[in-house]
């Protein structure tokens, strides 16, 4: 076992533990902060299996963007007056049953599929491609998808601003 592998397992452990913490904490803010750890763990995994750019995007977009949004969301939808921002949970047993059952099925399937023995994976020589080729891919093969996602972000921005901006005034008008 090389040093990199050990680190990889550390990151896997970090991801799992923080995810489990999210599952069982009652405090939404804590959950949000645990989410940072999860994202960092996943980013670390990405980095170690040769997807450096994705790792950086993960940190930038998730930690820098989505998480900030979530924290803002928590702030906006709770009256913070000293007390903790908690969220009660329900459906616990049924949720556990469904997700646990699903996990069991997944586990069986993963064992059965034996991913390591799948032909194309077996015959491949894992290596880390350069950032340059990644950029080239984006601008050639996936240029359409790239344009579309750009447009989608624009639309989401417009829509989100429109929906959130008018909300308070709208409610006042209605009441």
């Amino acid at each position, binding site marked *: 076992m090389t040093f990199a592998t050990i680190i990889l397992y550390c990151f896997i452990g970090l991801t799992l533990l923080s995810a489990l913490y999210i599952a069982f904490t009652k405090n939404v803010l804590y959950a949000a902060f645990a989410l940072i750890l999860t994202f960092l763990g996943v980013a670390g995994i990405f980095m170690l299996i040769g997807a450096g750019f994705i790792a950086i995007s993960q940190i930038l977009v998730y930690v820098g963007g989505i998480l900030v949004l979530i924290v803002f969301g928590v702030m906006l939808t709770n009256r913070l007056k000293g007390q903790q921002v908690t969220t009660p949970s329900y459906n616990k047993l049924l949720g556990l049953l469904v997700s646990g059952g699903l996990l069991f*099925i*997944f586990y*069986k*399937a*993963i064992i*059965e*599929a034996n*991913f390591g023995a*799948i*032909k*194309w*994976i077996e015959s*491949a020589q894992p290596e880390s*491609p*350069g950032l*340059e*080729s990644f950029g*080239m891919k984006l601008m*050639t*093969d*996936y*240029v*359409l*998808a790239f344009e*579309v*996602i750009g*447009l*989608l972000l624009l*639309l*989401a921005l*417009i*829509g*989100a601003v*429109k*929906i959130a901006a*008018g*909300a308070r005034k*709208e409610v006042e*008008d*209605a009441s």
Partner: protein
Amino acid sequence: MISLLQSNNASDLKDQLGNLSEDVWMLAPEISVVIALLLLLGFDLLFKKNKEIGLASIAFCGLASTFVILTFQWTNFSTDLMIMGNLLRYDQLSVFLKLIFSLGGALGLIIAARNGEKNNLFQTGESLVILFGLFLGVFLMTMATNLLMIYLSIEVVSICSYMLTGILKGKRKAEAALKYLLFGAVSSAVMLYGISWLYGFTGTLDVTSQAFISGLSEVSVLPLTIALIMTIGGIIFKLGAVPFHIWSPDVYQAAPTAIVSIFSTLPKLAALTLLFRVINVLPAGLFDWQLILGVVAIASMIFGNFSALWQKDAKRMLAYSSIAHAGFLLVGLVAYTEAGNTSMLFYGAMYLVMNVGAFLLIAILERRTGSAAFDDMRGLGMKMPFLGILVVIVMIALTGLPPTVGFNAKLYVFSAIWEAYQVQNNSILLWVFILGLLNTVVALFYYLKLPYYLFFKTGEKTVLEKSSIPDHIWGTIMVLPLLIWFFQSEWLMNVLNSINFVF
């Protein structure tokens, strides 16, 4: 490293870019939609007041030019092509669907224009811009053959749909948007997970490639089933069929009628096309998708129809009916024959016309009474006999009775499945056939509820507004084809028969 070098090779790159820029011509309709979108955005930013007419004209011109381009593509169609680096497939099926989508979109906008609600779609540019984003999404859905493109186009449609549901004022709209979004996010996560496994099995995202097919053939049953069902699940969410149908009644009830008329048609048909494309590449005997989709179709028909029986709101009833129609649409797909494909497409096209027509009439009635609840529509038919008769015709068409084209559509899909049963002898086909027919009978009861309330109940409610001539004209334009095509379904059939389904 050799391959890397190759793609860096300057002349190769030039070739590739050259190919891409050639492919751009195939995307002319999409580009036209995007241009319209940007114009709307610009117009909205430049002007402050009285924007309705400008926005409306840009929107209609955009759709019209798209339609013209598509007609041009249809008439000059030469051969099926994979374009944009195998992300999309340019074929007659997609061109045809986009043609009817642009028509359906225009009809939806007409409903919005006729609806005259206070917070009209045309008053602010944002909602129109997002609506055009949705058009772009459904256009791409009809062409996508790459898992990435499938995911992306579905997401474009979904995110635009969430926003459209919640963008206008109203408590219920906000609630529906939130539910829609959460449900949709989970569905797309499920689909994405399935896709990630498919990628793992095959090493490719291109569903048309040989590697994809051979890769799938080597996986054992359980993982394959999981991956495919989860992937198909995401598509079924857009189709609005069981088990991913639960969002639709809430959303349909709350969202503006014009938007709902588009929600209930374009994404459904686009999702059906996606399903069709995915299923067509699956090697025979690998996976009994006929059984799965058969079960989904039966369940959708039963859930949709039986729940619709008890609704008290016309829009909510139509939502359940659209779940049932998703089942009927799947019937043609399940048949898996040439006739099945043609009939599915015919049903889809007719469903679009019928449903948009139904929503137009509901919108008109809604404007009269201020709500879409059945109770408020009592006796309206006597006050407005012409519109009442139009409603009756549309409802008969949705039920699938002669002399409307709804009958032809049901006749085609059911004769297709019956023939398929006789050839393939697969018992699920028989079940689909029998239960489908029984469901048609159930449908009769709730579709005729609206005419019943309109004509046979007396209401005291005063009419808010007199019916106007444009209402009559638009209503007739929407409804007349339903009658004409019953006698002349041949010409559309000829168009559809000319479509090459070979994949």
